């Protein structure tokens, strides 16, 4: 068959111009960070604030180095708890959303209870969990409770946001339920799922810390939240700040890692991961 004349080739590379403003996304936050540190230091020095009220940034940094062995161990415990909660939230949230998508009956039956879990403050549930479950399991369950709903809600939204014409096309070609899920619904829902996971990453850390605080108050514990509590009891405010700093950095790293994964999976086709045209 002869067919039509081939279209002239275009330089597809030119569709996505490189952004020479990318560096501003790094420089400005760094400038704000340095300005904040300088301001903090000036406030402490000029106000002659004692370290048990507000330690200066240098003292916090020195404490971080001096107590690194204790803090890093606690950081490892908290991160492991957050990771376990995150994996449980990711698997549970996506699996439940898939079940909801396949069966409205299941969705109507279970969604209200998922919402109940979401709207009940984890700090109120944690003491109960610590009574009914072993401590580490209870802490992971709390991290899961906080993190799983965004994954469930986003995945459900994604699975229900499939282009109607594409769904019609799959119907036309008599696609099976599995084919619709694999080739249409899951890829279409991917940006939503990744958005949910990005939220869940931070929330799993928050859930882990909240549960650790409850567990720390109830008994033994060695996570960062426990170190914060312990430091406050001992008026070791510099270590408290150092632990808080580690938590913040951990949260930022978790977010950045998930953003990187999201970018890697979407960069070829999804608007959210494409550079803006100039």
């Amino acid at each position: 068959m002869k067919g039509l004349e081939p279209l002239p080739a275009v330089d597809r590379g030119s569709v996505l111009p490189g952004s020479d403003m990318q560096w501003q996304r790094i420089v400005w936050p760094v400038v704000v960070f340095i300005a904040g540190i300088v301001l903090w230091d000036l406030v402490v020095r000029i106000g002659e604030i004692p370290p048990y009220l507000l330690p200066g940034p240098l003292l916090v940094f020195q404490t971080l180095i001096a107590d690194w062995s204790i803090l890093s161990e606690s950081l490892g415990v908290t991160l492991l708890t957050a990771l376990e909660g995150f994996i449980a939230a990711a698997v549970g949230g996506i699996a439940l959303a898939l079940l909801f998508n396949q069966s409205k009956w299941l969705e109507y039956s279970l969604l209200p209870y998922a919402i109940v879990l979401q709207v009940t403050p984890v700090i109120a549930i944690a003491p109960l969990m610590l009574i009914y479950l072993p401590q580490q399991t209870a802490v992971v369950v709390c991290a899961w409770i906080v993190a799983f709903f965004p994954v469930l809600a986003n995945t459900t939204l994604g699975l229900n946001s499939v282009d109607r014409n594409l769904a019609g096309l799959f119907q036309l070609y008599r696609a099976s339920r599995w084919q619709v899920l694999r080739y249409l619904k899951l890829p279409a829902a991917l940006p939503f799922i990744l958005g949910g996971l990005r939220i869940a990453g931070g929330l799993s850390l928050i859930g882990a810390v909240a549960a650790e605080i409850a567990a720390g108050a109830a008994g033994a514990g060695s996570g960062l939240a426990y170190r914060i509590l312990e430091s406050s009891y001992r008026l070791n405010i510099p270590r408290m700040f150092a632990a808080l700093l580690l938590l913040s950095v951990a949260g930022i790293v978790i977010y950045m890692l998930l953003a990187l994964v999201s970018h890697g999976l979407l960069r070829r086709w999804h608007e959210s991961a494409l550079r803006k045209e100039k």
Partner: protein
Amino acid sequence: MADPALPLNDIPAAVRLRGVTKVYDNGTVALGPLDLDIRKGEFVSLLGSSGCGKSTALRLIAGLIAPSAGTVDVAARSSDHPIGFVFQEPTLMPWSTIRENVRLPLKLAHVPDAQSTARVNEVLAQVGLADFAEAYPRELSGGMKMRASLARALVTEPDILLMDEPFAALDEITRFRLNNDLLALWRELGKTVIFVTHSVFESVYLSQRVVVMTSRPGRVSAECRIESAEPRDDAFRTSMAYAGYCRDVSQALMQASDEMANAAKARA
């Protein structure tokens, strides 16, 4: 293409609609009763104002929706070559390359990639997209996306090609080019084409027969045969014959509109 030398009644029907009506869940009567015969190899345009039920008729023929009453007989549904459908939008999967988009109907039919690749390459070459197989839809222009959509519809070698205002969103030059390309493919492949449009000029240029539909609920108001010499080209667009057909079809369309307005007045 339907052999113009044969009397119409001697050509087997590819699609037959009898007393078809469609009432949506919200009570809107979109169509009918509609009676329509389309013969094998024929290029027919369904012409009417927006919302007259043209797209509903096309979706009924495709089997995407069920009629509220009446019968829809489509010979291709029982064959191994499913119906090809081109939507108003390109309707490509943005997460897949053009090659994988075009391959989709074969994948859904469980044809292994090793076997389907040659056919995918062939159809991509037919629509002039051989060099863009590995591109993503966002990297192509509107016209190229439509070509990809057409390639996907053709990849299963369907007996019937249903096209729902496929070029409506394109600029005039691109539309003219794609009109010519579509006619070339139709002549080459001999498919039955049912083309929905609200453009008088496009329907006359492309079709062997223009079916003019009334406003909602859509019914056949008039049929105009376009008995022009083949192949049609840009010379036809500027010919007196083309202008004459456009005038006739426009009048039929106006008449269909008047019929509905009078019927509405009578009801009031």
